[in-house]
């Protein structure tokens, strides 16, 4: 993995590529799986764009809330005079296959990251770095300085850690809690969430949080210099100065 030629563009004390090969590979596989999960998830959602709380929910019951979109099923009262085409078959096949890809990739990444000290070194905020001044500056979306081409800032670190260790496990859990096969073996997976329909509602909100994270993440990448940051995540090379972007 170590390539001495790449080290030439790194600041003193930093060796190797900007992002390790494992980080780069798992990042892009996760991007592909996430996009597939998002598109198919929306397709599955429109067959019943109503949400409930507790164990049960159907069109004969009052929903917790309803998304004001047309549905792909005629039995759902949406107020629209038409029914969208049914795309659930392939959407479900692809959703679950992409979920396997995302979970296996995530496990590989976390296993490697723990062994290689990736989280400790690159993602846990350094001592004293989390001051209100720093957080405030980042939340005002100040354009990142050159030093950040080689290191994550504290707010960024917290956001990445939250996505990896909170949102991702939650979206997997709430998803698995809807599997009748899985909950037959592990009933607590769904009862702890308050029931089958609660799990579905929570799955929707955690997914929405992941979409917010992705939008903010891509937004910050564009702000920091889309070309250089994406190049670093593909090739591992990062520019010393951001003017190279």
């Amino acid at each position, binding site marked *: 993995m170590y390539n001495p030629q790449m080290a030439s563009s790194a600041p003193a004390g930093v060796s190797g590529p900007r992002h390790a090969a494992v980080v780069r590979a798992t990042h892009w596989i996760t991007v592909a799986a996430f996009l597939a999960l998002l598109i198919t998830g929306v397709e599955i959602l429109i067959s019943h764009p109503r949400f409930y709380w507790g164990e049960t929910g159907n069109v004969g019951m009052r929903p917790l809330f309803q998304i004001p979109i047309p549905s792909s099923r005629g039995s759902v009262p949406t107020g629209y005079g038409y029914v969208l085409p049914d795309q659930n078959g392939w959407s479900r096949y692809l959703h679950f296959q992409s979920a396997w890809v995302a979970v296996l990739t995530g496990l590989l990444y976390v296993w490697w990251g723990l062994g290689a000290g990736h989280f400790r070194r690159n993602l846990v905020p350094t001592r004293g770095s989390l001051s209100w001044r720093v957080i405030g500056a980042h939340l005002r979306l100040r354009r990142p300085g050159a030093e950040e081409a080689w290191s994550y800032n504290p707010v960024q670190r917290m956001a990445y850690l939250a996505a990896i260790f909170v949102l991702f496990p939650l979206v997997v859990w709430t998803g698995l809690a809807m599997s009748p096969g899985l909950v037959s*073996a592990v009933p607590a997976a769904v009862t702890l969430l308050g029931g089958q329909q609660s799990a579905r509602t929570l799955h929707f909100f955690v997914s929405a949080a992941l979409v917010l994270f992705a939008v903010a993440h891509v937004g910050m990448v564009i702000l920091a210099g889309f070309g250089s940051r994406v190049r670093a995540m593909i090739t591992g090379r990062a520019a010393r100065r951001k003017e190279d972007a």
Partner: protein
Amino acid sequence: MRKLSRRRLIGAGLGISGLAATAKLGAHYGLVPPDAHGLYGPGETLTYATQRLLARHSPAREFARSQISREPFANPTGPLGDGFGVLEAGGFKDWRLTVDGMVAHPGSFTVADLRHMPARSEITAVQCEEGWNYIAEWIGVALAHVLEEAGTLRQARYVVYRSFEQGWWDSIDMADALHPQTIVTHGMNGGDLPVRFGGPIRLRVPRQLGYKSVKYIVRLTLTDDLKKFGKGLGSAAPEGGYAWYAGI
């Protein structure tokens, strides 16, 4: 650029033959679903094999009587034809459930025959792939009991079941067929099974999504090879784009 070393080539070769051996072993132990040959085969196989290895005998969740849905919902079925109307007018006395294929005593049962068999009541959820669900009490005879009466042969690996509704058929493996909660249902919430919910008889497979619980069943066929049925994908569902295994 790295050179392809001999070690890498040997490693890749071992990896490929290892995958091939795993696939063969998986098929031998019934861990590969019949619709595993398409683009989504890997994901389906991972799900099915994982659940068969880790949760073959686990019981579907059962609920308290107080949790029974006051508003159960059923998707409308297609036209059932005049033949169904005639049977319904006769109180389904002439309804027959035929059992054939790999059984020692092929034959058929009337609804009354099924009602005379040991009844089981279970309060389980019907969960539709669309996202909605409801809880009801289901009364019926264990499919395992019906299969035992017909004398199921040891080499049978799947039960294919057909609906009175044209074109509707499905199948389950023996793990689900012999599972105590898989029942030939003739009652619901204390009464007869209403036509809307699949009456006179419906197969309930509570560890899988609702579409595996086929309504108006008329025939059970025991087999060791799903390739002989329909397009060979195990049920009408994959022919319509839906997964054969719906335990997700």
